[in-house]
């Protein structure tokens, strides 16, 4: 039966191909992490992590990227808090107040998904036009606003996925015991989903700290650690980007070292996110 054999061969071939593509994906990740660590680790030093650029820094002389590390943390922290202030109430509103209007909620989800797809450079360009319009110069504040716009859809959609899983009975019993909708939202829903909400916040923070295109126009760049919201701010992604375009080897090496710092931060965030998300799945009420 030659036809039977052909079928077997086809299936076997595709199983090999499927296995290979899975391996390719896993290898790609290890290759990325490994090449960054291999190239960057030798240049990571205490001075690089704890000092700001000194004279001649961009010609390979002393100093570090503390300005960019602190700047990135300020920026992402500010944006994450701002996004949380807008995003958490929105996600709760969709899942508590609008629970009877599923069509409307699905419309909002659709819109958020669309916003999620908007490239960060478009947010950057938009932030820039707003800055020009109001006459604000490139600053930490302008950067925080732009990044907030960019991470809100991510945060709300991840929280929404978590809040969606709360059984309706919990809402009904809370309301029937006389609590208001706001109390139900913040004291029942948030409490029930806290690990999931934390995961959503961490994911957004990771997005905020890693994005370069949205802050290229809006935060500027400086060698100093910002002390006020209206000052320009250095950030890690831009520090990597700028130093790598230098022809001087020492400066390039520092770009690789900065990449190690950024990768480390991102890895820590994803590990934390996984821990909290595992916790959420353990606490989840299943019906």
């Amino acid at each position: 039966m030659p036809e039977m054999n052909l079928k077997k061969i086809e299936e076997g071939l595709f199983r090999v191909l499927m296995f290979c593509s899975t391996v390719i994906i896993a290898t790609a990740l290890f290759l990325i992490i490994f090449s960054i660590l291999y190239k960057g680790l030798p240049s990571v030093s205490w001075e690089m992590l704890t000092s700001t650029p000194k004279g001649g820094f961009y010609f390979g002389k002393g100093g570090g990227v503390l300005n960019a590390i602190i700047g990135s943390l300020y920026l992402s922290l500010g944006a994450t808090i701002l996004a949380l202030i807008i995003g958490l109430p929105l996600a709760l509103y969709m899942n508590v107040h609008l629970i009877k209007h599923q069509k409307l909620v699905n419309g909002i989800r659709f819109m958020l998904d669309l916003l999620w797809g908007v490239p960060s450079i478009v947010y950057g360009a938009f932030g820039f036009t707003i800055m020009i319009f109001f006459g604000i110069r490139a600053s930490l504040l302008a950067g925080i606003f732009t990044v907030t716009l960019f991470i809100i859809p991510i945060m709300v959609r991840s929280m929404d996925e978590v809040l969606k899983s709360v059984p309706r009975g919990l809402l009904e019993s809370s309301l029937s015991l006389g609590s208001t909708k706001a109390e139900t939202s913040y004291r029942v829903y948030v409490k029930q989903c806290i690990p999931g909400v934390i995961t959503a916040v961490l994911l957004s923070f990771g997005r905020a700290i890693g994005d370069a295109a949205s802050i290229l126009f809006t935060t500027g760049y400086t060698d100093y650690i910002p002390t006020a919201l209206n000052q320009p701010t250095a950030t890690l992604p831009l520090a990597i980007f700028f130093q790598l375009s230098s022809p001087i080897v020492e400066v390039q090496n520092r770009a690789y070292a900065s990449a190690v710092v950024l990768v480390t931060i991102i890895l820590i965030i994803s590990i934390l996110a996984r821990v909290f998300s595992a916790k959420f799945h353990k606490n989840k009420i299943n019906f």
Partner: protein
Amino acid sequence: MKFRRIQIGRHLRDKIHGSWMVISLALVMTTPVFLLVGLSVKSWLLLEENSIFTLLFSKEWKPLSGQFGFYPFIISSVWVTVVALLISAPICLLTSIHLTQYAKKWVLKIMHPIIDILAGIPSVIYGVWGILVVVPFISNYLGPFMGKSVSGYSILAGAIVLSIMIIPFILNILIEIFRNIPTELSEASLSLGASKWQTIKFVLVRRAMPGIISALGLGMSRAFGETIAVLMVVGNVTKIPTGLFQPGYPLPALIANNYGEMLSIPLYDSALMLAALILFVVVMLFNFASRLVIIESEKHA
């Protein structure tokens, strides 16, 4: 008395929270309108003097003499996006079938964090990886192998980096789609005597087709708007690329590269904002169509 005051306080608090929720909703839902209006107002200056068609199809990009032809950039964007999709589409499709149909538990346990971490790696890191690995690979091995001497900074380098970046994105959607297909379907096919592979080929993939196409559409729009990673490896030469090994200059890279000087040349900022507007509109349309197809196909499930 005291009880009533607490009651009023509670309801007042409920009102305040409720209004803030509505305000947040309004803020977020109007964002696309603001984006559209903000970018349109800025690009209007340029559109007043040139028709959109000459801008889109003119090859001349000479900001100093007021000529803004986007054609080379649009073509570069299309090249990188399409090649990236051609690389990542088969990998994603095969992997998603493997993970949902064949893979053992331990494989899933390893692959889930890998996909998550890949999705979380910042684009500047992908760019650094591109410069460290992909560009030298093309200039030292692939180029000479094809009998060409190339710098490595090319459409192909951009596409390879992009393809890895969009893999987790497409893969997550595909896995979701394959999981949502009712198991009765494949059980019916298996009980009629079809082999596992035949069932996948003729039942699962056929059933998932609209979802697969829209997942690729979403991946494509993601690739179309990706900036920093591509910018770092694609070469950035204003010329219409004719081959994989040539440098290109995609639209997002154009915007990102010239923000410094755009205020010193008249209409330059307007041209860059128009580039952002084009990106926004194209990505929104792609996303809109793809999401709609996904929702429609889920309805039938």
